[in-house]
């Protein structure tokens, strides 16, 4: 079976979806294929740009955009240096798409939010969905952490104890915890979120919470308030309680990342993008530095896809975009080179603050996101590389994964949109 398209995007993560949204908006025929569902559904649902100060990694960065400008000057190998020209534009585009789909993302006056996690730590992020955007915790007059008996992996007491230790709250700020019951059983976050879409269940939760509310208290809940990106559960709960209600970041499966993924998929399909998940690209034909077709399989059936532009958004080692064996790493579809250096690939400590070297491995690109070799020569002219495929960033430490994905995906979509007939 053969398919023909203007722009082929391989990968359904954040950068692939951004590329699809932008290229489709520019009128291109876009096909997005992916082996499985992208990792954005496993993310916090927030868009991190840059977390900490370049010179002092213990200090939260106050102005991520300015910090990225400085980063690009001192580290021109960082992916941000390839997308700096569109960074702000890409964020505006992202926010417009979210807004139009009824899932607004909020910034914190140009700085970083400091949002509580399920462990009671505070993580910096640039854009947050309205349901997670807790304002300044220093200002609040009370916090109530609410957990559900049905839900594993969320313990209000742990959150409260660590939040107290963090010192972010005022010394006299009351901090209480409460377990509520949403009808019994042992539920996954998705099943609980589905249950909470029933207004009668929310009413029963409200009844259980009300007696414990102190004036001015802010409520922190696990990220289960609503199934879909346009869900009204968090808003309704807040209105019924008369108090602000927020979801905190938690381990996957968590709903905010899934909502972002669903929303972007729904958006690009509405823009006419053909989305084929469960279609694995195994290889490609390249002639005269141009990809003539990619070779895929769907449930065992071979599919050949030809496109004017191919956007490689397959992710890093975990997503299957990069492969490795001892002493060697490569990109899995085009066999693009991945530099490995001579140092150890990983640090001794799993949570090392220096990060792991393997996270920085990836494909080198020029300012048009085309893959280049050691000498800077373009390897394949009609292929662009985005997101976690890119070399040079250490996203778990730098807190820049989704930021790089948004900007590079947008830029690839825009450049693909400019390719003539």
């Amino acid at each position: 079976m053969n398919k023909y398209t203007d722009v082929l995007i391989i990968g359904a993560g954040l950068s692939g979806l951004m590329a699809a949204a932008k290229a489709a908006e520019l009128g291109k025929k876009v096909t997005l294929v992916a082996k499985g569902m992208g990792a954005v559904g496993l993310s916090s649902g927030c868009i991190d740009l840059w977390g900490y100060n370049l010179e002092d990694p213990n200090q939260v960065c106050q102005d991520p955009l300015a910090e990225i400008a400085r980063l690009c000057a001192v580290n021109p190998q960082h992916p941000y240096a390839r997308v700096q020209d569109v960074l702000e534009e890409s964020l505006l585009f992202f926010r417009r798409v979210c807004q139009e789909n009824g899932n607004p993302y909020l910034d914190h006056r140009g700085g970083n939010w400091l949002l509580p996690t399920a462990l009671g730590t505070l993580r910096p992020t640039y854009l947050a969905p309205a349901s997670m955007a807790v304002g300044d915790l220093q200002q609040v007059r009370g916090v109530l952490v609410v957990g559900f008996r049905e839900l594993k992996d969320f313990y209000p007491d742990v959150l409260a104890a660590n939040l107290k230790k963090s010192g972010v709250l005022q010394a006299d700020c009351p901090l209480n915890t409460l377990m509520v019951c949403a009808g019994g059983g042992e539920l996954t976050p998705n099943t609980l979120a589905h249950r909470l879409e029933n207004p009668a269940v929310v009413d029963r939760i409200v009844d259980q919470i009300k007696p414990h509310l102190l004036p001015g208290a802010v409520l922190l809940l696990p990220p289960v308030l609503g199934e879909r990106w346009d869900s009204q559960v968090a808003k309704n709960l807040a209105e019924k309680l008369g108090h602000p209600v927020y979801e905190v970041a938690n381990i996957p499966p968590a709903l905010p990342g899934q909502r972002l993924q669903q929303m972007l998929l729904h958006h690009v399909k509405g823009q006419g993008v053909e989305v084929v998940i469960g279609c694995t690209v195994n290889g490609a034909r390249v002639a005269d530095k141009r990809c003539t077709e990619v070779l895929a399989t769907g449930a065992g059936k071979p599919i050949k896809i030809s496109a004017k532009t191919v956007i490689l958004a397959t992710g890093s080692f975990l997503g299957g975009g990069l492969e490795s064996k001892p002493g060697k790493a490569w990109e899995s579809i085009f066999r693009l080179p991945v530099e490995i250096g001579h140092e150890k690939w990983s640090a001794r400590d799993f949570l090392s603050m220096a990060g792991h070297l393997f996270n920085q491995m990836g494909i080198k690109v020029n300012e048009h996101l085309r893959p280049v070799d050691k000498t800077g020569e373009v390897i394949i002219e009609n292929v662009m590389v985005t997101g976690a495929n890119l070399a040079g960033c250490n996203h778990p430490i730098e807190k820049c994964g989704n930021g790089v994905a948004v900007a590079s995906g947008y830029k690839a979509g825009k450049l693909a949109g400019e390719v003539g007939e």
Partner: protein
Amino acid sequence: MSSDHRLALDNCIKCSICVSHCPVARVTDKFAGPKQNGPDLERFRLEEPAAVHPSIGYCTNCKGCDVVCPSGVAVSAMNCRARGEYVSLHGAPLRDKILARVDRMGRAARLAPSLVNRLAGLRPLRLLAEKMLGISAAMTMPRYAKKTFLELYKPKNIGDTGRKVLYYPGCYVNYNAPEVGLALAEVLAHNNIRVEVEQFDCCGLPLIANGLLDTARDQAKKNLAKLQGYINRGYDIVTTCPSCHLTLRQEYRELFQLNTDPLHEKMLDVFEYLSVLLQQGKLVTRFEELPLQVGYHQPCHLKAAGCGVPSREILQLIPGLRVADLDAGCCGLAGTYGFKKEKYAISQAIGRNVFNAVKELGVRQVISECGMCQLQIHHLTGVAVYHPLQVLAQACGPGKWLAK
């Protein structure tokens, strides 16, 4: 246990993407989830085959887990085998043995299809069937056609294009919706292609979904041998049912280790076949205007084929036709699943998204390739539901293909 199988198990990185996309786990806690029943428990089953969680019966076999898995783990095949193990240990209820034999039900209904249809609509009888057998009284039963597709279809003499096409209609088209098969013949006749038919066994999917793997394996071998014979004689095989298609091409290999490689090239969804003609410049693209707005529902098993929506490109050629994707996920019926008393409510809860999407789009007609999805969408919304082929046949010329 082969080393490949062990490796496949190790590929699961426990990311839970399958759990978060499972339509059943979303609406009920009765199903432990695809990861838990699949790769998690498979480790125990390697040592002790009886380690099957009873909640395996709540899997609909929609194959959403296979589609979304970023690590290529065949979760649904593990679950199908586990259900087979469970049924071979504990037996299947009579109800499941009846529902799984859609071919036998079809043949039995041949004796008096109108009477069967009337009886299926009688409330007291349905309540009795619910009490005695556990078949939901609330679910709409598929109606049997007065004559089967194989009885109705008369190959016409058409100018020879040299193309040999064999059609695998599947039980639903043959016994319940012969108009889909006739629409296929009409569309191919429009392109001067004659369709051959043959008596096949049921693909076996209802058996697989009910854990009756031994019978399914026998049918698989017979079907595959017949199909291979046609392929050897230069035929292309076309299908209109995504579930039959996926079963023949994927399940026979994954569950029964049969060689289905020839089918990957030679068996095509009818719209894939038409797309090939279009790419070769051989498709007759003379279509009448069809001023219709329809919703499109992609069946789970078409999604699982990983080839996209083959009808999309072809339907775009029809002037006046507007197709809006419902994009609402699984309809919830899953073949025999939604007919079971204890699963009816789950099935309807899953299908709620489809209901909402039809309401939101305001469409009065929906198209979908799967006969069971068609039935469920009609049951959920009351709107008319067609196979995309019926729309295409309507655009090919005279005849009334869209009146049900």
